[in-house]
């Protein structure tokens, strides 16, 4: 349960420490409310789970994974159940990638794995042995924003900001998909190059939900970077 506390990076700041305290507090609260579920997070736990039809809860299994994230190599030993999303957030401290629904519906966890956008919540960390992952932290920095990051700021492409890293990673890969000629559901001619129309961009971004409803501004931001005219029908 406290693996991420033990492998803390040197020089972490007070904010990170405060965040960990909050996480620890939340886990304690969970443990108090759900003794059975908390037991499953304790290494070596094999005690029967109350109310479970299966008598024994299998013990966690650890396995090593090595991959590159934003150009830096990491090697970690993780529970086999660890998703790529949890590896990024809880083990590598890259909390820019967000956990929204944790079931592939909202897109907040979108990262670019080996050049393709994916839902990091629906992928096991172990399945990314040797992968090159690009997250929002690698796309741009506060000093050197990615053009999409700058455009989201300029067009106010968010309200709460929780979906934003996923929106931006998704949009960056989406524009690349159009460039590579990958068709979409709304592409009229399957054998022609797809256009960068607003209809195309909306369809292609349907895997990223914004509960604040900032869609029109998100579209303006993406369209600006794409060089498309949001009011027109094509690039």
């Amino acid at each position: 349960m406290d693996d991420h506390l033990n492998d803390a990076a040197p020089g972490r700041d007070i904010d990170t420490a405060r965040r960990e305290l909050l996480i620890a507090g939340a886990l304690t609260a969970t443990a108090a409310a759900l003794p059975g579920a908390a037991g499953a997070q304790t290494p070596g736990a094999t005690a029967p789970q109350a109310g479970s039809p299966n008598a024994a809860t299998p013990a966690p299994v650890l396995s090593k994974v090595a991959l590159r994230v934003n150009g830096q190599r990491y090697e970690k030993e993780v529970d086999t159940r660890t998703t790529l999303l949890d590896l990024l957030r809880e083990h590598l401290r890259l909390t820019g990638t967000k956990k929204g629904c944790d079931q592939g519906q909202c897109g907040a966890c979108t990262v670019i794995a080996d050049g393709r956008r994916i839902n990091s919540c629906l992928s096991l960390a172990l399945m990314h042995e040797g992968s090159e992952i690009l997250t929002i932290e690698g796309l741009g920095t506060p000093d050197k924003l990615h053009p999409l990051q700058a455009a989201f700021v300029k067009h106010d492409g968010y309200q709460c900001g929780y979906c934003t890293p996923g929106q931006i990673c998704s949009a960056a890969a989406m524009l690349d998909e159009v460039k590579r000629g990958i068709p979409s559901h709304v592409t009229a001619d399957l054998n022609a190059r797809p256009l960068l129309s607003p209809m195309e961009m909306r369809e292609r971004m349907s895997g990223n939900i914004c509960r604040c409803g900032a869609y029109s501004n998100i579209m303006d931001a993406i369209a600006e970077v794409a060089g498309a005219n949001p009011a027109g029908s094509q690039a």
Partner: protein
Amino acid sequence: MRAFTYQRVRSPEEAAKAAAATPNARFIAGGTNLLDLMKLEIETPAHLIDVNGIGMDRIEASGDGGLRVGALVRNTDLASDPRVRRDYAVLSRALLAGATGQLRNKATTAGNLLQRTRCPYFYDTNQPCNKRAPGSGCSAIGGFNRHHAIVGTSDACIATHPSDMAVAMRVLDANVETVKPDGSRRVIPIADFHRLPGDTPHIEHVLAPGELITAVTLPKPVGGRQFYQKVRDRASYAFALVSVAAIVQRDGSGRVALGGVAHKPWRMPNAEQQLARGGKSVTDQLLANARVTEDSAFKVPLVQRTLDGLLLEARRT
């Protein structure tokens, strides 16, 4: 999620052998459906066999003028392949009508065929469901069943198969190639691959324990105008209420398969012979024995009108 052991393998044969040798093992490829179900503990494998990185990831010309699609070809890559776009447009269209860009980048050809139903009662572990917990009952019968099957159903289950891709594969007469744990191989016509629920709705396909899909083959292109029309509650990223895959030839003959109406892609050769007589004649045959509820009755006229719309478009162009 239940804890599990994890294994990488070097070949499809080794994967099948390992699956048979390990109790409660499952293959994992894209993981987009399996991991979701594992988080909910609807799927509780004790062992995962990662079949990524062992080949099966190419689309190649087959000996008979068709295409052989590796089991691990991602949905994005299959939909984008120039040969598929040109010769099997119904398949490209079906793939692009499903899921999202992110999911299609991960989801595989074989995994798509093996998707499990999106029946909300299957997902709700507090409710009886014969598919999730055999013998516990069906909550959808008599429950909220607007999204459910209307043909091929049983008193045990009215779930639909959620795949769009499989409906296109069905209309194209695809074949599923597999390898068994003993190393033997077989070819299963897509028509025989998925099962109707009967009184064993938890058994959804004809694969034997440990049997691994290695490829799906598409016969020589049949030409014609090809359509995949999906009708859903949202314009994007929603499962089909109904979908129609159709191939219409110049002389008015053709093929039709339906999604969203049954436990498997729904196609009947004798119904297709009615194509020249219009959507109603075809639908009357395809859905002749439909068992609808107040909530799902809309699907019958929806299929007919969707099909009529496609036939009109086919005549126009």
